[in-house]
Each structure stands twice: as C-alpha cells, then as structure tokens.
C-alpha cells in the first residue's frame, strides 16, 4: 500500500500513530513492510491457505462475533443435501463436470437465491431445460421459498458446520507447510486479529488488487470476506475489505462498464436465449428480495436513456436493440479471435496491451493481424508502435512490410484538458475541471466517441436508401440512439456535465432524479447508470462538491459523491446490532433513533430509513420490502452476508487452496493440484509449464511475482516518459535473495535472464536481504520479484515482465494469474534474434512441454513431448501423480 498508494497510506500511518497494529503480508519485503509492526512473508500463491488458517483459528477457538454471525450472515442456513465438499471429494466440489461445475448442488435446502454480483443468468433454473420448456410451478416456488435455517448453528448441513469442516485441516502446521510462515508468526497474526475484532474494535483488510491476479482470485477475496464476516468487521467503521485499485477511474469503468458482460450499474448483458423478452431477462436476473428485486426499473430506465422516445412499453423498451452474449468475450478471448482473424478492428484507449497484458507476445500477434487499429493515448506507446520496434521486429521474426494492420494514433487530451468525473477506489465520484485547451489534434475521448458516433450516424442515415431492409433494421439501434449532447467551444467539445446528468437520470418532466428509488419501469424515468442516480440530485453536480474536509464531520459527506446515495460505508446497517443500537459507543456509525422512528448516524444509513429493526415482511412482499429490519446486506437475495456462496461463483461455494497454474510445488492439501474450473487456452503461443510433481517442473524451479514500484505507473505509459519519474527508477531489474544469487551465480547489478515457456526477459540484478528464501513443503523455495513497468519506448526502457506470463484465468471473472508463476533464472543478458527462440524452445523441450501440459487431462499414453525426447526429470518433490 505504501508502494502503490502512498497518499492513501497516510491513513495507515495515522492509525499506527493512534496505536493500531499494522501487519503486512507479502512475498516481498516492500516499503509497506518497512512501516509495518509485523511483516509476514509468504509464498506467492498460497494466500487461501493462510486466510483459511485464520478462519480455522477463529472457528476452532470460538473467536467469532456470535451475535453478528447469527443475525447478519447465512451461518444458520441449511445447504442442499446433494452438496459435497472438497474435503469429501479430494479437492473438487460436487457437480464437477470435468471442466467446470454444475452449481445446483450448492444451493440452499429448498430455496434458490440469485447472487448480487457475478453470473446471474439463471435461465435454466427459472425456465428449465431445454430452453423452450418454461418453468414448472415447482421450480418457481423453490426460488421464492425461504431457505431452511438452524439458529442453533448445529445442524450438520448448516453453513456454519460446513465451514468448520471445510477449514478444519487449515492448521498452523499446514500454513507453515504451504505458505512458509512459521507458526509463531502465524499465531501472532491470528491473535492480533481476534483481539482487535468484536464490539469495541474492528480490523480492516486492505489489498492491492494483486489478490485478484490468480486462477483462484475471487476465492482469495471470498476467504477474506468469510474471515471478516466471522469477526463482525463488515459494514462497520474501521472494518471492511478495501480493494486498492490502481487506475484513476478503474472503479468507474467497472460501474459504467467498458466490460463485455455488464451494462451500467452491474446489470448483466443479456445472453442469447430464444425469443428472450424483457420480462424473461428480468425474471432470470432479478432477485426476489433486496434491491435487485427492482432490476426492471433499472433496465427500463437505461433503455429509455439510450433509445429515448423510440423505447416504448409496446416494443419492450427496445430491449432487442441490445446485442447478446454467447460465452466468454473477455479480452483474452478477443485477442485469440484477433489472431484467428475473427476480430478485424480494435480500439485501444488509454491502455497499453503490447507490454501491459499477460503474454504480451500473444497480444502483439493479435495487433499484427488486424485490419485496423485505433490507439488513443498521451504518449507514443508500444501498442501504437509494435509494427515498428516491437520485440518481434527486433528479433527478426517479422518486419513492418509483413504487417498489414492500418494504425491510427490519435493524441488524447489529459485530465487537465477536459471536464469529467473519476470514481475512486472508495466509489467516490470527483469532478475534475478543464483547466486549459488541448493542443493541435489532442482531444478528449468524450470528443472522439461523440464525434465518431455522429459521423457513423450521419453516414448510415445518408446511405439509408442504398441499404437493404435487413441492413436498415441493423442500423436502427444506432440511428435511434439518443446522441444530442450540447457542445462547447471551438473544438465542439461535448458537455461532460450533460452526460453526467444523463447518467444520473431524469423524470417524466425531464428533471434530474434524486435517487434510484425513484426509478420506474413504466418508461417514465431515464437513467444511464442507476447506481449513480443522485449524483445530479437537485440539478447540482455533486461530484464537483469541494467542501473542505476540515469543515465537515470525519465522514466528510460534502466532498464529491459516493454511489450509492452518497453512502460512504456500504452495508452500514451492520454497524448497529439487530435491535438498532450501535455495537459500542466507540464504533457507533448509524443507528435506529426510537424517538424519531428513523435510522440516523454519521453516514447515510444503508437501509430504508423508516424501516424499524423489528420489521417483518409480509408473505407477499417483494424487493426491498421483503427484507427484514435486521437484514443488512440489502443487495443480497437473502439480505445476509454469505459465508458460503450458494451461487455466483464458477469454482465452488467456498475457497480452497490450489496451487497456481504454474508452481514448483505439489499441492499437498489434496490430490487436485490446480483450480479444476480455471480457464486455459492451450495454444502454441501460450504453452503452460509442468507443475508440482509433474516431470519437467524442475526446469522452472523458482517462484516469481510481478509488482509495481512507487516511481512508476502500470505499464509505464504515464511514467516512463517523464524525466522526474524515469530517473528515480531508471532500469528494468529483478529482485532476489543473496542465497539465490549464490545458487545461480548472479552478480549484484549484473544482468540476469528470466525464462518461462512463453519468453525470456533480461533485467539488472538487485540482490537484497528483503527477499528471503522460504521453507515450503519441506524444501527451500526462492522467490523472484519482477516489476512490470517497462517496454521499448520512453525515457527508460527495458523488457516487459508480461513476456513471461501465461494466460490462465479465474473462471468467475476471467482475470489472469500474474502474481504467482514459476521460472528459471540465469546470469547474463538474454540472447537476441533466433537465439532467443532457441533458448525458449530448449526450455520447452527440457520440460517436456506439449499442447496438453498444464491441463488436467491425463497426458497421452506415450507421454512424449513435442520434440520426442523424454524429459530428464530430476529433483521432483515426493514423486507420484498429483492430478485427480
């Protein structure tokens, strides 16, 4: 956190000053570790084992916050009897189909609940299978039924007991074995955590989003969530799980998603189903209880915002103008589709995949096979120049005259040259004002997409009579699209203020709406992103508020605007006990005022302010009204915090330790080496390495993890060009321990080459005691730290870490594993030209890598690698089969 978010870290220092204990858990000793009271080095990729150990400590010792757990979590809910745990099935959950999961056995007994996030399209549950076989009344009633519970938490199939059994083997000994954390240090952390949680105290978890960069990334976050729910640290001041995100508006670009599977406000993009109507879309994605029960209001208001007068009740509000998904259309699949010639045109806007995305070579292969590419950036980044000076050109693999991609580089306006909002990592929108005009051809992205849209619209309109009926029908969504933003100045810059107002939404009279609770599904309201509704309440741009922090309460509600409803802590109903009183004076945040008969407090209460704590819903209640007065998690279909996730995840309802896709170690917890549901792309440019006990794993004996430096930003597009940053971290380097330096003959400040099955990169060697070898599963394990900021352009240049990485994805969110890999390292610079390929080919051959390597299918009978020679397997740990 001190490394990548130094200004946010001031609050950690503030807490430390007031006596908080700071614990830092990381494979590397970083600037954060330097400030921590306790540093816990762990093996990259073993966090679930560590968090699982803490969960087990809490459960075994009875350290959980009993009242909180009983009232606010699904601990008491009984799970379907067909559920079987990884502890029963040696590393897989029930419902495993060989490549993924059928999740139905994970459901609650007698009831189904839609998740608040993640995959929600429960078409089969609602409408049965095959597709045309509509829902039976029995299934419909199951979805609406109340799940069975056991408030005593003793029923063997209640979530609490399942949790206890699931984590029972995550002992301090196991943590030591898998993570390399000695038991004394583990106990220190566990005891600190327990001592600092409860009525009077809370503990916060902060993670830089490296936690998500694993083939079990979502389950990392789930593990932390379980721990924090057990300790009563969610929805309370000083608690929570804080994602420290790395881009100015990465939160905003998730809320208003430039993401394939979402519409604004986390409404799922529709999937292709025969004759899918708006009603059916709502039925498959709504929750019966909670605020997702009102999804129809949100969807219709969005369709009205986009297609205006053309969207009417008669035509399903133009629901059919929305394109349909048929699978994973994420960025890695897209690049494969580029290589295969299916994707022909590509916009890259403020991002640098040629060096910034895992398996960068694969990315550039995609770029080189496009018809046209539009790159918009401040600087001449590698994604725009791959055809000129990319590694493939340098190595003589190809040349500009062999690359047919037409490239448009369009210079972008900077944040000081345009109006607009960023949403920070705490969901807070802040307006930045335009200070100066951009130069020459520099334009905001708002300008570009607005004028591109106008141009496309007018061209389609002009060609109307040349186009056949089917083409005209195809053009309707574009021609009917509301696109009438006022423009300003000589450049005809569209008004960002007007766009924000459209996002906020308007009522039938065209007045800005004050809250998403005002949205209606009858077509009378419009809103571009329902969760942002209220940012323009009272016709005031609340994101632009800058009431000085020191003139406000410590919650500072008058600075910017947070979604939803300017609420600064989500689910803050949990900050009060079931009766509505604060858990303690010290931790008071929102509470029920019995005299006024309303919720009040320091923040906007995350509950209907007039709903008393003793409210019990009527049998036929729907949506928010169907939640009890004690239910704090109002986006959940059961109003509860999920210790166990009966839906929404593709790799199981509970976190389980698996080894990373590529690991020198065998998974000793169970026979399943890797997350069995992870997503792989077996392709020539994306070969996987053997792991654990597989022959050839010893060729890549070291663990590596990629990281950020304070001095640079992401792939360097906004830092490598700046002299005052470039001079602070002026060269690509790798960090390693003195012990590894001796083992591999590496010289401090000399060159080293790091090799994986995808590529080899060079960097200068920083030998440092900050990196220490770990004892993990009975062997000494070395870890290497690799920053990922470099590329061939800019003031400081160097190889990109992403050349090394494979593409193996978390199955739920399709995020790749960059934080735990396996590699070899040797002294000296990497070879150039064909020699580089020869080096990688040699390694692939030595490790016996084939198109099957890294998958879970048993290898073909002969087990011969691509070059036909048997690998010289030595040094394997424990031997034997590790795959189920």
């Amino acid at each position: 956190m001190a490394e990548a978010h130094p200004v946010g870290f001031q609050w950690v220092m503030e807490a430390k000053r007031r006596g908080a204990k700071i614990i830092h858990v990381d494979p590397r000793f970083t600037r954060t570790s330097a400030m921590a009271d306790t540093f816990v080095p762990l093996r990259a990729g073993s966090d679930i084992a560590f968090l699982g150990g803490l969960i087990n400590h809490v459960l075994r010792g009875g350290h959980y916050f009993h009242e909180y757990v009983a009232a606010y979590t699904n601990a008491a809910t009984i799970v379907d009897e067909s559920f079987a745990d990884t502890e029963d099935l040696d590393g897989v959950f029930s419902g495993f189909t060989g490549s993924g999961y059928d999740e139905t056995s994970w459901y609650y007994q007698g009831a189904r609940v839609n998740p608040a996030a993640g995959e929600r399209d429960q078409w089969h549950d609602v409408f049965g299978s095959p597709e045309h076989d509509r829902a039976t009344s029995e299934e419909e009633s199951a979805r609406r039924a109340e799940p069975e519970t056991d408030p005593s938490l003793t029923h063997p199939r209640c979530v609490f007991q399942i949790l206890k059994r699931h984590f029972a083997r995550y002992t301090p000994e196991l943590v030591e074995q898998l993570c390399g954390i000695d038991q004394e240090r583990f106990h220190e952390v566990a005891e600190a955590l327990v001592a600092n949680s409860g009525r009077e105290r809370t503990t916060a978890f902060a993670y830089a989003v490296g936690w998500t960069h694993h083939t079990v990334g979502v389950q990392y976050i789930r593990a932390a969530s379980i721990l924090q729910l057990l300790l009563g640290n969610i929805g309370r001041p000083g608690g929570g799980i804080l994602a420290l995100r790395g881009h100015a508006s990465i939160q905003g670009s998730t809320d208003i998603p430039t993401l394939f599977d979402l519409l604004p406000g986390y409404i799922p993009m529709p999937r292709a189903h025969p004759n899918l109507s708006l009603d059916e879309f709502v039925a498959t994605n709504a929750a019966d209880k909670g605020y997702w029960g009102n999804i129809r209001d949100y969807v219709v208001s969005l369709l009205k915002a986009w297609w205006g007068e053309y969207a009417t009740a008669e035509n399903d509000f133009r629901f059919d103008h929305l394109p349909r998904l048929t699978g994973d259309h994420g960025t890695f699949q897209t690049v494969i589709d580029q290589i295969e010639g299916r994707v022909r045109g590509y916009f890259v806007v403020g991002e640098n995949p040629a060096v910034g995305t895992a398996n960068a070579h694969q990315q550039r292969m995609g770029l080189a096979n496009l018809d046209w590419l539009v790159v918009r950036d401040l600087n001449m980044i590698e994604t725009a120049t791959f055809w000129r000076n990319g590694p493939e050109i340098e190595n003589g693999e190809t040349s500009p005259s062999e690359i047919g991609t037409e490239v448009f580089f369009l210079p972008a306006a900077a944040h000081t040259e345009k109006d607009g909002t960023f949403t920070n990592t705490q969901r807070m929108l802040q307006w930045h004002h335009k200070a100066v005009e951009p130069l020459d051809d520099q334009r905001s992205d708002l300008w570009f997409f607005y004028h591109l849209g106008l141009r496309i619209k007018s061209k389609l309109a002009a060609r109307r009579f040349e186009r056949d009926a089917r083409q005209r029908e195809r053009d309707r969504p574009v021609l009917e699209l509301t696109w009438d933003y006022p423009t300003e100045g000589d450049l005809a810059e569209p008004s960002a203020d007007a766009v924000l107002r459209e996002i906020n939404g308007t009522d039938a009279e065209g007045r800005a709406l004050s809250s998403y609770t005002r949205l209606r599904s009858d077509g009378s309201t419009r809103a571009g992103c329902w969760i942002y509704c209220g940012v323009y309440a009272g016709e005031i741009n609340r994101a632009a508020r800058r009431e000085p922090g020191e003139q406000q309460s410590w919650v500072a509600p008058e600075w910017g605007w947070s979604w939803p409803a300017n609420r600064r802590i989500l689910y803050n109903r949990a900050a009060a006990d079931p009766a509505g009183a604060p858990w303690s004076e010290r931790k008071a945040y929102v509470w029920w005022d019995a005299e006024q008969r309303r919720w009040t407090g320091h923040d906007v209460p995350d509950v209907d302010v007039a709903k008393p704590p003793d409210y019990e819903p009527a049998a036929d209640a729907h949506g928010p009204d169907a939640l009890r007065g004690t239910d704090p998690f109002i986006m959940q279909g059961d109003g509860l915090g999920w210790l166990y996730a009966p839906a929404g995840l593709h790799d199981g309802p509970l976190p389980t330790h698996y080894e990373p896709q590529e690991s020198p170690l065998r998974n000793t917890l169970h026979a399943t080496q890797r997350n069995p549901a992870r997503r792989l792309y077996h392709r020539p440019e994306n070969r996987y390495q053997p792991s654990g006990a597989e022959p050839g794993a010893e060729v890549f004996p070291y663990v590596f993890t990629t990281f950020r430096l304070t001095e640079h930003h992401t792939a360097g597009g906004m830092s490598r060009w700046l002299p005052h940053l470039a001079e602070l971290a002026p060269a690509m380097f790798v960090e390693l321990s003195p012990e590894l330096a001796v083992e591999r003959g590496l010289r401090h400040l000399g060159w080293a080459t790091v090799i994986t099955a995808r590529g080899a990169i060079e960097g200068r060697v920083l030998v440092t005691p900050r990196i220490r070898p770990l004892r993990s599963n009975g062997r000494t394990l070395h870890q290497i730290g690799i920053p990922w900021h470099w590329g061939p352009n800019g003031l400081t240049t160097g190889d990109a870490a992403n050349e090394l990485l494979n593409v193996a994805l978390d199955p739920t969110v399709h995020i790749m594993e960059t934080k735990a890999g396996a590699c070899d390292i040797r002294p000296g610079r990497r070879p150039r030209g064909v020699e580089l390929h020869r080096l990688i080919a040699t390694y692939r051959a030595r490790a016996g890598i084939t198109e099957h390597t890294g998958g879970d299918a048993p290898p073909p009978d002969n087990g011969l690698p691509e070059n036909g020679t048997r690998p010289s397997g030595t040094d394997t740990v424990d031997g034997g089969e590790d795959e189920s």
Partner: protein
Amino acid sequence: MREWLRWPVLRQLTGSDPLGRGRAARSAETDREYARTEDAEAVVGSVCPYCAVGCAQRVYVRDGAVTQIEGDPDSPVSRGRLCPKGSASRSLVTSPDRQTRVAYRRPYGTEWEELDLDTAVDMIADRVIRTRDETWQETDSDGTRLRRTMGIASLGGATLDNEENYLMKKLYTALGAIQIENQARI
C-alpha cells in the same frame, strides 16, 4: 540614485548587517521573489490521474498553460498530499514528448504519415461501418437473436472519465460490438 543606494557595500556599512550576510547582500531579484502560483489566472479543481486513491489537485493556469499542480489541502482523502507520480503530473500534461498530431500508418507501411484529424475520424467511421457489415451476426444457427458484430473490439477505460466510458459503452452497444474490455479485468 535609488539603484546606487542599493549598492551592497553601502548597505553593509550603513545598515544592521555589517558582515553582509543577509539583508545588505540581498539583490532586488531576491526581494521580488514570490510563488509563481500567485500569477495564475485560474486555479482549477482537479483529481490526480494516476491511481484510484483520488487525490485532489489544484491546477494553476497562466496564458493558457498549466504552470503548477499542487495537492488540494481541502480534500478529506488526500489532505493536500501527492505521491511522486501525482507530484509529476504537471510534467505529464506539459511534457514536450506528448503527441499533438495524428499519426497514420498505412497497411504494410514502414513509416508514420501525417493525417488530418477530421479525415482520420471519417476513415475510422467508414471502417467501423464496413467491418460491422462484414461481420454482422443477426442470429445464431438456431435462429436465436444475437444482433451483434464480433469483428470490432475495444480495450481501455480505467484511465478515462465516467462520461467517456458511458459514451463508449453506449455507442458500442448500439453498434452491436460486445468485446468491450478494460484494465479492470487485467
């Protein structure tokens, strides 16, 4: 005459600084020193463009150019502080290395070429329409509606404004382009 009275030796001999280590040795320029931010014609509220902490900035402008960017002490998030990247954001926006002109590379070309911005937008619009038509999928083989193009993709958004992401998603969706992604998944 007045200049002559400023002669350091005279001041040194006649004033309170006989050793000439302070007041007597001050030049007129030193006396005139003040922060260049005082000359700003406008001070504009902004937000740091790097990570997601969202530190508030004050952008000082003179003659249509950014002369300084400071942390905004009013912010309850950052209290006026900036990290090295945030502190370098004046350089980011005023960098002479920043591109100001469209650059065009024709298929199989070996060099960049100049291209007028308006022409570039027009050419891109043509390519979107052509690619969309060529790759349009109205239905799947079973006749289920798809209404999309799999020929156009987009990457980026995490460094942009919400309003920009909104227009992108809106336009792409209307065009039927679905492979729209950003750094949030990377």
